[in-house]
């Protein structure tokens, strides 16, 4: 079986979608019927990590948009594929060039409402299958798309061996002034266009939490153009001393970052799934996610951590306070539901279903 994967970024990429695509490629490469996986990435901002076997990563496609189209046209002219996977809804018009019936992957908010162009909205109806990272995304996609074909839920995978409970990294403690502090952590992009992550909500409950837990600080880990506004907001709420911005964080230090935290809280409204929750839980940090986005599935509907309504400040405050006073650090039982071997099984089951 030969598979063509069109994706935004994967190896050499940054963020949740790139990570998902890397794991998808690794899982596909283990499929017993796979002869070759050809991948056209749209972006490669970072050095490329070692590729999985049977994988051809067309780096030239990432040069610019024209190069991407040229590489795609060249590839489909020269080669035949049994399955074309469209790794993002934005690539649907291009996927249509390769096949009328791609397997579409939806990650989150991009699939929660009609797509930005008419072609995509038409193509989407003819997909061979639609894979969503969460059931919430699947249902929200079906809500508007009138798509009637098969759908699959493929949650993110976490490499449990890369995390674990560790001693707090002294360098980071000093760098961010966290000595003797208890830490609430949120990791995410601070983007003006993505004001749904829940940073605002946590900052708003910080004054009362600090009154109850004077040693508490809120660490916001991530870069982006919304940081100045959030900094102003922390001043308005009188917690500028307790809200710490790390800026963009080195991926290699992520496990240490999570281990700084006593609570991971992200009362977001816009997570398709929320890989960060898996990372936090794999680091043994009591985790709080939203009831109203894909985060609830990352926490297995509350089995692995606490769920809150992002619009309910009292609920958020109480959940954080409970986590600080009640929950010891431990890796929750049941997290292996998201272990990589399970991810591989799910990927193979989907492939066998759409390309028998």
């Amino acid at each position, binding site marked *: 079986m030969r598979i063509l994967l069109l994706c935004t970024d994967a190896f050499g990429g940054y963020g949740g979608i790139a990570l998902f695509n890397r794991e998808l490629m690794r899982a596909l490469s283990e499929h017993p019927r796979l002869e070759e996986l050809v991948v056209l990435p749209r972006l490669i901002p970072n050095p490329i990590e070692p590729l999985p076997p049977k994988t051809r990563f067309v780096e030239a496609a990432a040069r610019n948009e024209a190069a991407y189209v040229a590489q795609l046209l060249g590839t489909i002219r020269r080669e035949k594929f049994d399955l074309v996977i469209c790794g993002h809804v934005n690539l649907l018009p291009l996927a249509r060039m390769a096949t009328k019936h791609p397997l579409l992957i939806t990650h989150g*908010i991009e699939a*929660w*409402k*009609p797509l930005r162009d008419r072609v995509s909205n038409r193509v989407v109806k003819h997909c061979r299958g639609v894979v969503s990272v969460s059931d919430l995304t699947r249902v*929200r996609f079906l*809500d*508007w798309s009138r798509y009637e074909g098969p759908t699959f839920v493929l949650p993110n995978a976490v490499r449990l061996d890369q995390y674990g409970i560790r001693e707090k990294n002294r360098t980071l403690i000093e760098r961010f002034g966290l000595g003797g502090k208890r830490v609430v952590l949120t990791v995410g992009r601070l983007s003006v266009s993505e*004001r*749904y992550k829940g940073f605002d909500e946590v900052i708003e409950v910080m004054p009362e939490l600090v009154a109850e837990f004077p040693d508490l600080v809120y660490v916001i880990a991530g870069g982006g153009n919304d940081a100045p506004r959030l900094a102003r907001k922390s001043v308005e709420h009188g917690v500028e001393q307790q809200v710490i911005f790390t800026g963009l964080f080195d991926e290699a230090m992520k496990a240490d970052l999570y281990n700084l935290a006593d609570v991971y809280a992200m009362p977001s*409204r*816009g997570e398709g799934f929320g890989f960060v929750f898996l990372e936090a839980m794999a680091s043994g940090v009591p985790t709080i996610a939203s009831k*109203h986005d894909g985060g609830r599935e990352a926490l297995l509907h509350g089995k692995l951590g606490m769920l809150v*309504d992002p*619009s*309910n*400040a*009292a*609920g958020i405050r*109480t959940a954080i306070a*409970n986590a600080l006073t*009640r929950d010891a650090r431990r890796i929750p039982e049941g997290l292996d539901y998201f272990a990589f071997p399970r991810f591989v099984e799910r990927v193979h089951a989907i492939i066998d279903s759409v390309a028998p």
Partner: protein
Amino acid sequence: MCGITAIFAYHDDAADVRPAELEAITQRMFARGPDAGGTWVSPDRRVGLGSRRLAIIDLSPEGEQPMFDVDRELVIAYNGEIYNHRELRAQLERSGARFHSSSDTEVLLQLFRAHGERMVELLRGMFAFAIWDTRTRRMFVARDPYGIKPLYYADDGRTIRIASQVKALLAGGAIPRTRDNAGIAGFFLLGSVPSPFTTYSAIRAVEAGTSFFVDTHGSTGRHRFYSIAEIFRKGLEQRTIANLTTARTTLREFVGESIDYHLVSDVPVGVFLSAGIDSTTLTALAMPRVREPLRTITILFDVFRGREFDEAADADTFARALGAPHTTRIVTRDEFVTDIPKFFEAMDQPTVDGVNTWFVSKAAAEQKLKVALSGIGGDELFGSYPAFEDVPRIVKTVTAVSRVPFGKWTLGRTLGVLKRLHRASPKATAIPSIGGTYAGAYFIKRGLLMPDELTSVMRASDIDDALQRLALDERIASMIEPDPMTPFGRVATLEATMYMRNQLLRDTDWASMAHSLEVRTPLVDAHLLRQLAPLLLSRGEECKREFAGTAPTPLPTAITNRPKTGFQAPLHEWMSLADDATSTRMRSWARIVFERYA
């Protein structure tokens, strides 16, 4: 759902609590809770609690009230339903709390122990309760954010008496029956008595969304824990969130969640069904969420048969398509006339509304239902009342006219002429003087009589003092503080805090409880409003259409295209109301109500 009583003789000089008074107040609310009842008086006789119980969650005797916690340090009298009681219980248990029952009542006790007065912010539901803390010798009193469940008090400076109904407090015999002209004027101006007034000087309503303590110094620490105006203000800041999904998805998910919570019950639940969008969509969303189809109830006043207000046929077709066991209950003139004395006997405060709820609740009770869902609140939530267009238009017009020299004077003269020719509402002449603000324009839109017309129903010598104390304009204006900033937000806040709170919800409570029926309102939910506020502010009145689209199968066009008629009762036809220059003759009805209530 219950009727509750609390008496606290907090001042040293106050006489001890009389068990007979406690019993009399509690027994006056028998219909609110025919399943069980009880009273408790503290060993020192300074505190007494009472309850009549309509058993809906935890039907066992363990759920009876007044209820102590396992440590016998806290005791509660509580009316309402806490829909998220299971989640709260699980959290409390993880923190070590112990329970002796599976009722939501006991969750309140443990929640108070864990969080003190902040507990109310964690509740999803309708509630009014008093908790006596034997450790601190303080009473904690709270009422839900919208004011779905009633709670009244009389505080004479020595003893505070609290109950679910005004008439129950009076039944105790210790509270003077002096009439309050401010409350009476409020009734004639608005058609219902504006909170916190009642028609009795000694009795006031506990404001919705507030809590307070009572200790040896009296009531203290009054705290507003929910403000609808603030929710809309915050929703405006969060408007971008509304764009994350389609309006339909947002409505389906959040209203669906609210319905899930409102279906939490240990007894069967029914639905009030009309042929309107709110109740049909609610029914369509609720039906797949239950194992046994929900029984649906529609009433038809036989004088309306075949006329525009006849919703029975469309409701019947709709219910059958959903597979619901359906009842269309015909109300005849004879039954109406027979019931009217009981209706006025049950009416807790004078109101021009409540007739429909009386009969539909009666019909539900006949079907052995203890709980019914209602679509009330949909018009306030989705902005489908004419006030959402008319109030901003009045404000805009008066503001524009007032910029023109003699503009207001000319407008006033013109409206005066039109009024004399019966071409304008009797309220029209008030437009130039008070229509320039949202509070004034809202009063014109929703008011029954104008202040200068009170002489026809009250003694002239009482009016000035009544109006001064009522301070209606300031009272209405205070509802939109902080300013929700948008026309939709302002009118939605006023509708929710004035008409819905003082009339619709209050009347739904007494008229349903008179038949021992608990009415649940999934569209009147403090959490739902917080969740939907960004969407409501960005999409406004469109939300009603989108809400109709959330039904799992499309609503029939007979329902979606049906002109809005409101939930009418044939008062004009069956009570021979005198012409009062209005189409509804509500002014005449108000006079009859006041006479019969008095």
